[in-house]
């Protein structure tokens, strides 16, 4: 679009000859006119940069008179400080080396102090013996293009800002989720003198707040309370019930650590909170107390169950059995509910195992009814009898891992044991 050469495309048809002749004449007549008022700036300089020729378009952009420019200014005098630097370090060396350079973005100074973005291309004209004679330069107006680029940059910045904001929001939500998750489960179990404890929580979905819960905490000088359970449903609503359940049981135990009283309080709280809400929520739970006897090394267990699968007792002598609590009702579905108690004494080396039904309802076959079940669990537990709680939990973690995709529900495990006489006792988290 800036070529100054003659346009002499042949006519397409004879009957257009007349108008074509006029067209050609017009072009030939206007070569100088085209140079002067072309839609781009033209500039010829000596090899040292002194401006020898410049067209009116460029003078108009610069706001300068021809007399002030030709023979008096160098090309770099037209550029901004940054443009001068770029010219010296990149533009001029490349031009000398290659004999041409094109499409370089620079800024020229306008009178009045404004800067005008331009795209500059130059070629060196050589003499018949190959010596460089002068530099021909075209200057394109890049204001629209710059505005468009700035628009793109602004758009990209806005997108980056939105992305950054989304990432920050996500991080904040993850932090909040982690704090809430911690409120659902104890980070570690407290040391219980004369008792070994171990627990495990298997999360079926890492980003889904859990519905199973457990805890161990002191109730008075010599007794500790423990509980483990399962809230119906999944997700944040279930997690809210889990949190309410955990703190209700802890608070109830401070008031009265009798297991039936604690579950009765929880039943009342859940029923009042959720029964009339159109979204009934309930849970299964085992709540109990531990009373270690430092003299004998025995631990007395007193527990109650509300709709929860029976706990297991693994004896040091190898016998293993459920501690049945039939008839205890789900917690929270009726204004008042029956809860069934059971007691046992752990001799040194015995372990009490609490679990949620994620374990017994893990699928072991293609059929939805092929579940791991209570008989298999009893047999597995019997194989662990005599081991300390952390070893029992480790074995169960191995069992859970073996279920693979068959384990599609959260699973909580809690083992409480009377330490066998021997060297070490410890509390695993």
């Amino acid at each position: 679009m800036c070529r100054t050469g003659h346009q002499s495309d042949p006519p397409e048809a004879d009957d257009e000859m007349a108008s074509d002749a006029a067209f050609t004449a017009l072009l030939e007549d206007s070569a100088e006119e085209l140079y002067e008022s072309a839609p781009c700036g033209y500039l010829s300089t000596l090899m040292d940069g002194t401006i020898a020729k410049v067209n009116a378009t460029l003078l108009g952009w610069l706001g300068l008179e021809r007399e002030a420019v030709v023979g008096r200014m160098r090309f770099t005098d037209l550029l901004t400080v940054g443009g001068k630097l770029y010219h010296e370090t990149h533009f001029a060396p490349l031009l000398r080396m290659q004999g041409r350079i094109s499409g370089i973005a620079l800024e020229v100074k306008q009178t009045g102090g404004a800067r005008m973005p331009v795209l500059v291309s130059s070629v060196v004209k050589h003499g018949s013996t190959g010596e460089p004679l002068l530099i021909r330069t075209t200057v394109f107006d890049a204001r629209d293009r710059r505005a468009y680029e700035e628009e793109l940059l602004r758009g990209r910045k806005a997108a980056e800002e939105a992305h950054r904001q989304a990432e920050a929001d996500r991080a904040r939500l993850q932090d909040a989720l982690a704090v809430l998750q911690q409120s659902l489960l104890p980070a570690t179990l407290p040391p219980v003198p004369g008792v070994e404890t171990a627990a495990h929580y298997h999360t079926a979905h890492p980003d889904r707040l859990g519905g199973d819960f457990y805890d161990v905490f002191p109730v008075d000088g010599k007794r500790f309370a423990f509980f483990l359970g399962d809230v119906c449903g999944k997700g944040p609503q279930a997690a809210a019930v889990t949190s309410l359940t955990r703190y209700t049981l802890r608070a109830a135990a401070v008031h009265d650590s009798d297991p039936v009283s604690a579950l009765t309080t929880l039943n009342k709280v859940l029923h009042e909170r959720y029964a009339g809400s159109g979204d009934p929520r309930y849970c299964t739970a085992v709540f109990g107390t531990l009373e270690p006897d430092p003299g004998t090394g025995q631990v007395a267990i007193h527990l109650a169950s509300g709709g929860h699968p029976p706990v297991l007792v693994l004896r040091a002598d190898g016998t293993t059995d459920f501690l049945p609590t039939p008839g205890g009702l789900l917690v929270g579905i009726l204004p008042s509910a029956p809860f069934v108690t059971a007691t046992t004494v752990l001799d040194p080396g015995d372990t009490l195992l609490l679990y949620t039904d994620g374990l017994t309802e893990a699928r072991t076959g293609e059929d939805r009814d092929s579940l791991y079940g209570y008989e298999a669990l009893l047999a597995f537990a019997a194989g662990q009898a005599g081991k300390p709680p952390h070893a029992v939990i480790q074995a169960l973690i191995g069992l859970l891992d073996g279920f693979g995709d068959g384990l599609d529900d959260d699973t909580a495990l809690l083992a409480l044991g009377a330490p066998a006489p021997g060297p070490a006792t410890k509390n695993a988290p």
Partner: protein
Amino acid sequence: MSPLKVTTRDAETGPVLEIVGELDYANAGELRDLLATITLQPGQRFVVDLSRMEFCDSSGITALIAAHSLAQEAQADIVLAGVPANTLRILRIVGLDQIFTLYPDRDSAVRSLDERR
């Protein structure tokens, strides 16, 4: 996998709801929506026939509890008929066998109320 199909009919004793197929997390909502459309009169018997139910998970149990609440609010009686063995085992563990009256099948559930009258 067989999808859930729920049908209702009215017996002399009250509505009879039959659950066929699998009652689980994916479709227990259907049953709960349907429960909202059932009207119970005081003294009626609401029979839930489970004899052709093939699977029931905890969401299914929740839907059954919702049916129980519905009957209680209407001062009606609710009974489960033909509970499959697997589900019966779960109902026993969670103690629900105490709050639902259980009948071996639908006919005995409907008949026993007639005899009481």
